[in-house]
């Protein structure tokens, strides 16, 4: 009785890990694209701070009375452009998170529907090529939580930024970098290694 149920659960798990593998790459790429943007955000903030620290009328630039206003406008405009690009990147990250969350919740739904026909042994049994269903569900859940948290943290960071709050902007690249969690990323890579035989098996 439990055999067809297990097969379909295995299918769903395979699909989820496939989805995880694809999206892990997308996630990494998007994050890599964000780094230079964060750096330019910090640079622009530094430039604005420098402009605030300088009394233009005491410098050789005093010949250009509207310079400060014009430069500030250009800096704000550039900051805005970078923030817009970052928010586009955030939508890409969001779609990664959504894809993984949807896939994982579908597997869990399937699992919960079939609990009656799955006994403890079937769920915890593992072989040389396939980890147990329980383990795989746990790994998926860990991965899903990781992307969910990462997305929220990064999104929150960006949402607190304002083009006119220079100290927040200046520290943003550093705080962005501190959100990196290589161990969690490594865990996901490990997971994908552990299920590689399982994914290749029919």
């Amino acid at each position, binding site marked *: 009785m439990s055999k067809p149920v297990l097969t379909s659960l295995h299918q769903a798990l395979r699909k989820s890990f496939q989805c995880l593998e694809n999206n892990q790459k997308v996630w990494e790429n998007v994050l890599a694209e964000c780094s230079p943007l964060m750096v330019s955000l910090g640079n622009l903030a*530094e*430039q604005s*701070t*420098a*402009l605030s*620290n*300088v009394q*233009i009328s005491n*410098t*050789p*630039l005093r*010949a*250009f009375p509207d*310079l400060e206003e*014009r*430069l500030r*406008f*250009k*800096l704000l*405009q*550039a900051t805005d452009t970078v923030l817009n690009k970052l928010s586009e990147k955030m939508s890409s990250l969001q779609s990664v998170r959504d894809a993984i969350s949807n896939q994982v919740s579908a597997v869990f739904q399937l699992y919960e529907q079939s609990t009656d026909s799955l006994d403890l042994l079937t769920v915890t049994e593992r072989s040389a090529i396939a980890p147990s269903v329980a383990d795989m569900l746990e790994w998926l859940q860990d991965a899903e939580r990781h992307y969910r948290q990462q997305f929220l943290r990064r999104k929150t960071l960006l949402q607190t930024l304002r083009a006119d709050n220079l100290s927040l902007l200046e520290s943003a690249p550093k705080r962005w970098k501190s959100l990196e969690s290589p161990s969690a990323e490594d865990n996901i890579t490990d997971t994908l290694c552990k299920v590689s035989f399982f994914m290749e098996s029919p």
Partner: protein
Amino acid sequence: MEGESGDITVTSANRKGSAVTGSARKIKDNAADWHNLMLRWEKLNEDGFKVAANVVNIRGSPSDRQLAHESSSPSLSSSPAELQNECRKLQDIVHKMVVVVMKMERLLTSQRGIQDLEEFQFAPEGRKSPLFHTWNTKQFEELSQVLLDAFSQELKLKQTILQELAHTWTSDLCMVYLSCWLHQPFIPPETRLTLEALLLETGHRPL
């Protein structure tokens, strides 16, 4: 801006291709020249920014210099020559920018000439039907003036930066100079729109 450089190519071939003559021909060519000069300016601005950043980096912050002096490090002894070299490069670039603005002035003069001719040929109120789509001849002159004013002022700023950059000791002011160089405060975003409007009106860009 860079990406759009390939959008229109003005070669002698496609100048002959269209059957525009007289004042319209001249205005159309001027529009293409505006486009090319502005591209050239952008390129010079990028190159100049790299050189200007080098100048600031070589010179280093005052504290660096003091440290280097105290330890009398020989590695920094080549700095003055290097600095001189970079300053000369920047000077060359600003000189090329002067040439670009001179050419822009000539475009305005030519536009004025067309306007004068028009007033001579027709009454002071100008020709009845527009040369291209909707603009009257006067508008081309006004636009050229707007563009020229922006670039002339920006050139003055660059010249000031060129003079001061290597003699500035406060890092904030250095940063402001670099920031000015990069962001070109006197060339507002509308400049690009003005150029696009000009290209659209004269038929370089398809409607």
